[in-house]
């Protein structure tokens, strides 16, 4: 199993100015919504690639939050945080699904579920944007 790669919250969770009811406020994700580590692994027999996020609040039972074109997003049953992405592909082609993954996370953040986790989905998207390419390249390397 590959090692967890620590995420730097200062680069992932950057405060930004948002408009709430016409008022400019500085906003960023709550600390418990920022993944502290990420890892990418593969099951070559089942042709599946897993992207997993770890949080300070620990693990919890997972449910499918979204499913499309061979990609499944697993969210926490209670917190609704994004914990795992399962891509039905082999190690070398998993990176091609990043566009689908990103659009699915964006759709998930628009859902009106309770509790709202749009900031969590935004930070996981950021993690993938910053570290995703390297993680998938590293995974593809291990297959050679």
């Amino acid at each position, binding site marked *: 199993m590959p090692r967890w790669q620590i995420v730097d919250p200062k680069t992932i*969770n950057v405060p930004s100015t948002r408009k709430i009811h016409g*008022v400019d*406020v500085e*906003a960023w994700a*709550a*600390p*418990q919504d920022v993944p502290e580590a990420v890892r990418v692994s593969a099951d070559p027999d089942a042709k599946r690639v897993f992207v997993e996020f770890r949080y300070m*609040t620990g693990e919890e039972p997972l449910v499918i939050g979204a499913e499309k074109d061979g990609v499944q997003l697993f969210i926490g049953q*209670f917190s609704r945080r994004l914990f795992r992405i399962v891509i039905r592909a082999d190690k070398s082609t998993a990176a091609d699904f990043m566009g689908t993954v990103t659009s699915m996370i964006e759709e998930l953040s628009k859902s009106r579920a309770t*509790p709202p986790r749009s900031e969590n989905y935004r930070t996981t998207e950021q993690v993938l944007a910053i570290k995703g390419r390297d993680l998938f390249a590293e995974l593809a390397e291990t297959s050679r």
Partner: protein
Amino acid sequence: MRLTWWRRWLFRGMTGVKVGGVFVAGIVGAVLRTTPSNWSAPINSWLQWVHENGWWLIVVCSLAAVVATLINSWLGPPWVWRSVQKLLDKLRDEVFDIVDEEGVYAQRVTLFRRQRFLWWIWPWRRWFWPWGVWRCPWSGWLVPVARSGHTTQKSRAIYLAPDDADNAEGVAGQVWVGNRTLRVVDLPDLSTESSTRVIREYARRSFVSEIWLRRRIKAKKACPRALCGFPVEVNRAIWGVIVLDSRRPDSIKLEAGQPIHKMFPIAIGEILQRA
């Protein structure tokens, strides 16, 4: 639940009732298994009395123990609130530049709990109805339960945190609705001489009603010039909100990724599980 002297004493009293109730019920149960005639006077007459009244003694003692347990679980153990208070003080010391004595009470950290039901609200929000127009006790409220320092502990700043999220009040309400960290800085400096335009600007930027704000100014209560809030979770659900307020326009040093900001919500959430 603010840790006041009467809550502390009530918790101790209820603990006594609980222990006493179980103990007496146990003794009565043991006495019921004895034969009074086997004992000499005056013990046999006491045992006889217990035999005649034992059934209701056991019922009353057991009920008292159950009620005391329920009251104590509602109050929460005093150590929880002492720990919360210490954590709030620590957070205040870390995120504010407290350079003089004024800083201790001009820069505060308040823990609000989201309550679905609030049976009473003071002062009344409208003269004819305590909870305000189109609002009721079960509208959803953010109630202050603990605050750093030892002054301004009797806060009545209760904010609406309703199901219809558009009407959430204050920075606390907005944090609760969006479940994210928010910061508002450079709010206008308010006083009794402030113009209507300035008061309206302050109310708009801090998400409070103008009426509420005018009442506060009239009561000569200080209005913070910078506010910051973040959600607190207990058992993976949003429990409440922490709000930092300062009378200085830009003195809140809370940053994403700062160790205290990272660890604080987790630490307080773990402690509040026992409340």
